[in-house]
């Protein structure tokens, strides 16, 4: 994957088995977010391909990728700032609802019924992350930790098959981080496969079934949490090495 004249990722290849939590770690600039952007079609790869289930989704548009069931959160939390907490999550149900502009303008019974259903579903998602008391707040007015949880609820409203989480614990305090960890651990039971980027190693080690390590855009290791913790090359990449120029 060549990006702005630099090779941001090269020959990174791995599989994320369904129903598992797959971790992705690496020092800053290793290409983790770039990889997320390639999977969600925000950046097209110059070579290589992204396969989801049995289909090749390389070069699809971002909304098509989302419609197939791939949801994501963003490293720097990107909420819809003009909308309430509930409305943010209701937008997340867009993928599996269908009322068009005309039925919206005329407020057809079908559209109203659909909206009631999505509202219930959105409240359930908010309940799951523990924000159901804050339904009518402005999304922007929430403290940062709750904004992260709201973004997670919004992604869950897509009923995703694969969920990409980009540093879901960044900026959170210890208690919030533990809560996010618990939530992530409960996702496979809901039929959601997780690909997780996270700098908090304690969190990563406690939730990931397997971990892929990137460094300078190259995959340097892959294995279980214990294997990764014992891997010399990984430790060198993180602690730095005088020889790397």
């Amino acid at each position: 994957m060549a990006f702005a004249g630099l090779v941001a990722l090269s020959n990174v290849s791995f599989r994320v088995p369904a129903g598992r939590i797959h971790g992705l770690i690496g020092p800053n600039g290793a290409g983790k977010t770039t990889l997320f952007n390639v999977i969600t079609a925000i950046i097209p790869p110059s070579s290589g391909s992204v396969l989801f289930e049995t289909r090749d989704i390389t070069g699809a548009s971002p909304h098509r990728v989302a419609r197939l069931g791939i949801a994501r959160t963003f490293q720097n939390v990107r909420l819809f700032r003009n909308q309430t907490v509930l409305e943010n999550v209701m937008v997340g149900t867009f993928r599996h609802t269908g009322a068009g502009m005309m039925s919206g303008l005329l407020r057809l019974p079908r559209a109203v019924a659909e909206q009631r259903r999505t509202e219930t579903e959105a409240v359930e998602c908010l309940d799951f992350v523990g924000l159901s008391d804050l339904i009518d707040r402005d999304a922007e007015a929430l403290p940062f930790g709750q904004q992260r949880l709201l973004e997670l609820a919004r992604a869950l409203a897509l009923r995703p098959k694969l969920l990409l989480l980009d540093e879901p614990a960044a900026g959170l305090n210890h208690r919030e981080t533990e809560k996010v960890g618990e939530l992530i651990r409960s996702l496979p039971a809901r039929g959601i496969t997780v690909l997780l980027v996270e700098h908090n190693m304690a969190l990563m080690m406690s939730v990931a079934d397997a971990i892929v390590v990137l460094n300078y855009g190259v995959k340097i290791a892959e294995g279980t949490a214990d294997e990764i913790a014992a891997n010399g090359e990984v430790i060198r990449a993180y602690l730095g090495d005088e020889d790397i120029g």
Partner: protein
Amino acid sequence: MKARLDRPQILLGLLALAIIGAFLLLHGNYLISALVLAAIYAIVITGLVLLTGLNGQYSLGHAAFFGIGAYTSALLTIAGVPPLLASAAAIAITGAFGAIIGVPLLRLRGYYLAVATLAFQLIMLSVLNGWRQVTLGPSGMANIPPYAIGRWVVRGESAYYWLTWIVAFLCIWGGVNLWRSRIGQALLAIKSDEAAAAAMGINVSALKVQIFALSAALAGLGGSLYAHYVTFISPERFGPIASFELLLGALLGGVGTPFGAILGALLLIALPEVVAPLRDYKVMVYGIVFILVSLYLPLGIAGLIQGTYVRLCGGRRPGALAAQTGKTEAGA
């Protein structure tokens, strides 16, 4: 906005009462004809409010859509087509124009978008002036037949009052519905963050084109009614100044809710009276008002009213509203 749109029935009821009340009070008064024009502007401005308030797009070309609607309706009815069908054609043609020019406009944002729509406005003005075989050029088209619905021919100020205000009311109602709907909420999401909206499965380009087409179609509908009401149309009425006035009406009335379109339309009717002694300096005053509104009243008068209401009655601060124009509520 949310607190208020949760119960739009109350505001719609008040609007209906105001429409009936104004008629009872002003029946026979020359002001009725001013209110007919206000209803027509309210239809067009509703389109602009949806475009700007819901989706963050700006148009300085809506008088061109207004004109296309007026000429379509005039030409067809002069040729013998029933006005109801002519209105449908005006809606369809302006909607199609909106969709066609909406596609290249997708690449533009904010003021660049406004300038591109202004260019479209100027092109359409040249066409109306230059295509004499069809539009009769700058001298305009006269003797446009009155509006008719089946056998009922709309004659007299009172009849036009009811026709135009019922249509305006339905447009506001539709706008309020759309605002709360799945598509409306998706349009608001696009306005805040296109990449995040796409990550929800929203086809950002398709929806932006759709709302632009809807907005143009509402201008076309307004133009169709206008042509039959005034019975004479000429290109000068559909130029850039008119586009500017319509956008000013939308911003002044308030783009945070479709009800802002009513306020904007009424102001648009009142403003020329207020600035009449200034004659040639009229446009200058518009410019100053425009700057003041964008600086101090980003959500227009509707936003000001709502802000005051929230402050007096407690409840939610109008922060969500302020955020909708991407500006802070500086002076309010």
